[in-house]
């Protein structure tokens, strides 16, 4: 397919980099660059979807309210997108943001208009099976080429059809993973051609019994290392550059800060995110390609979304 130089420039350069989408999540200077994939992995109730809402709002809000005003595609395979919750978060952040920037003109109609413009930057697609997911990704290509401001693709969740695919593939593992492999290859091509960023959640369903020792069994909160077993297909795992492991409770490193905050808000459930970034182009002290950078952070959930401790 041929394209002019202007189109090539528009395709490659126009998308906004999302490296600064959430600096408290990612290690130093290791934010998600163009063409990188972030996977959020965790048990149920560990705040993965809330983090997605947080990132989503950060993207679609206007610059006055602390956002980046880029367009986002949300592929919902779990039917877990709650518009009420999203609108609540947007309203809270818009109210906070607009009131500080333009205190005199914060009327209801301007808030309404701002909300409308935010929501117009969001595209939502529901998928019911992995074939539908594949077709959706094919369809996305036309959307990507026609919207130069589309820079984020959120998939919630990529592992929703794991068991159906496994059963449908019969005995051969290749057939079981076939559709997800095709989705991963298609995603790789989209990432390379259009330089978008992808965030995807996956459910933790495998328990890692090798790392399970009796000392940690007495602790009430399951540590993230128990459930981090990757089980999706290899092409997907190769595609992932940043892995965020979510769990409930506060990790030991941030205990002091968490305890201080926890006294103020005694009823908040805190969540921990542990980020493992294996970006090969990191300019920090790691010189070899294979090293990984780690970071842990804590957050809790309020009406206005996720607040980092």
């Amino acid at each position: 397919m041929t394209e002019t130089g202007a189109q090539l420039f528009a395709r490659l350069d126009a998308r906004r980099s999302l490296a600064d989408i959430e600096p408290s999540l990612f290690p130093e200077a290791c934010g998600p660059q163009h063409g990188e994939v972030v996977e959020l992995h965790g048990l149920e109730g560990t705040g993965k979807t809330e983090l997605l809402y947080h990132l989503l709002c950060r993207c679609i809000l206007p610059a006055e309210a602390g956002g980046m005003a880029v367009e986002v595609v949300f592929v919902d395979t779990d039917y877990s997108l709650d518009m009420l919750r999203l609108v609540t978060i947007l309203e809270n952040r818009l109210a906070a943001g607009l009131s500080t920037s333009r205190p005199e003109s914060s009327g209801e109609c301007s808030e309404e208009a701002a909300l409308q413009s935010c929501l117009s930057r969001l595209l939502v697609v529901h998928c019911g099976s992995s074939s539908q997911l594949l077709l959706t990704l094919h369809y996305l290509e036309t959307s990507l080429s026609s919207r130069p401001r589309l820079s984020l693709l959120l998939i919630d969740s990529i592992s929703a059809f794991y068991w159906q695919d496994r059963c449908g593939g019969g005995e051969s593992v290749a057939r079981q993973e076939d559709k997800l492999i095709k989705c991963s290859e298609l995603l790789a091509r989209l990432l390379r051609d259009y330089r978008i960023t992808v965030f995807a959640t996956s459910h933790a369903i495998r328990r890692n019994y090798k790392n399970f020792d009796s000392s940690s069994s007495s602790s009430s909160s399951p540590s993230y290392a128990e459930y981090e077993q990757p089980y999706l297909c290899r092409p997907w795992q190769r595609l992932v550059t940043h892995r965020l492991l979510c769990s409930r409770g506060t990790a030991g490193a941030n205990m002091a800060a968490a305890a201080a905050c926890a006294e103020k808000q005694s009823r908040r459930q805190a969540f921990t995110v542990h980020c493992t970034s294996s970006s090969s182009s990191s300019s920090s002290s790691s010189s070899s390609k294979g090293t990984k950078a780690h970071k842990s952070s804590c957050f809790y959930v309020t009406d206005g979304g996720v607040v980092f401790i």
Partner: protein
Amino acid sequence: MQAAAQTTQCSKAEGEKRGTPALRKDTSVDAALEGKSLRSARARLILYNLARHNEPSSIAPAVAAQGPVISSILRFASRAPKLTSSCWQPAIELSGGGGGGGGGTRVQKAANCSFCQSTDPDDLASVDAAVLINIPQPRRKRFTGFPRLPDHPPPRASASLPPPPRTLMESGRLWRTSSAAHLKAGETLLDKLLDSGLYTGEITELSGGPGAGKSQVCFAAAVHTAHRLRQSVIYVDTAGGLSAGRLLQMLRVQTDQTEEQMEALQRIRVFRVFDIFSLLGCLHDLRCGGLQQASLGGGSVKAVIVDSVSAIISPTLGGKQNEGMSLMMQVAGTLKTIAKDFNVAVLVTNHVTRGAGGEVLAGLGLSWSHVPRTRVLLERSEGRRTATLVKSSRQPCRIKAEFDFNRESRPGEGRLGGERATGS
């Protein structure tokens, strides 16, 4: 050969399943027929139950599957000079057997066998033994097009969402649960637990041990929806625990008028399914138009209650087969689609298991735990019932509430306690 023929004669109504094994074992027929010449062979073949076939050659492949013996006899018979096409209908009888058969066997007259009805003594005398084979007719249907697949709603891609509602009430369809009078003590607390009720568009799960009160809460929710909110309810009963008498008892506490009670009962539509495939079929029917049909009494369906989804899923889990997990996720997907597309609240019940540390967990494993949005754990100990909110996207902490299922309402009973989040 004699014994085989007799048994097959006795089982005339059975069909080829009975006849074939007996024939398969006996290879003496083949040997017996081989030596006979066509002229002196006492082989007559009458076709049974193959009224549509006129071509003997087309029968052979169908019958060849029944065993090598029959196929050899058919081959033999097709060369028989006396057989005309009219003889092929309507029955096949195997005869022959040489010396072993003798005259001791009787010929069973097939009812619609033209050969047997013939009065030609020469024909009948030459039949030694009769074996009736019920050969299934290959069904020849006229091709009327490809089978209609169920209508799945296509993936929706909306370019822009509709404008958000002014109030949160409209798009979320907030509504309250379980305010039957004898739950009054716990009703407001249970509603507070669920953040003012069951939400439409998502799945709520109640888990608890036996006797914890899950079915009672489901009944109360159904009764409340049918009576107070005047909306229809679909109740899928897999454990056989639903009784209309109990629903009527709950309704009688709310209202005295019989018409209202009957109207409310009519709005509750009950489906009884006892295995996972019928559950999938039932949910699929609901998706493909059953929900509109199920709306009786003027209201649309607002709640789908599946009592004990774990009772039919847990037998399929375990072992090495993946089919159970796949069926469970299919049920989950269908429930979620129903909840989202038709804007209904789905309430399911689950059993409990013990975790590694001895704590009580909801059943069906890790894969199911991602499915419901809100999970409540019901427990009963020392005569007190407690409900704990285990997972919620609205209430951030684990709230416990006590409730009671008594007839007389006790105002002020029950506590609402909060727990500091420790990640347990």
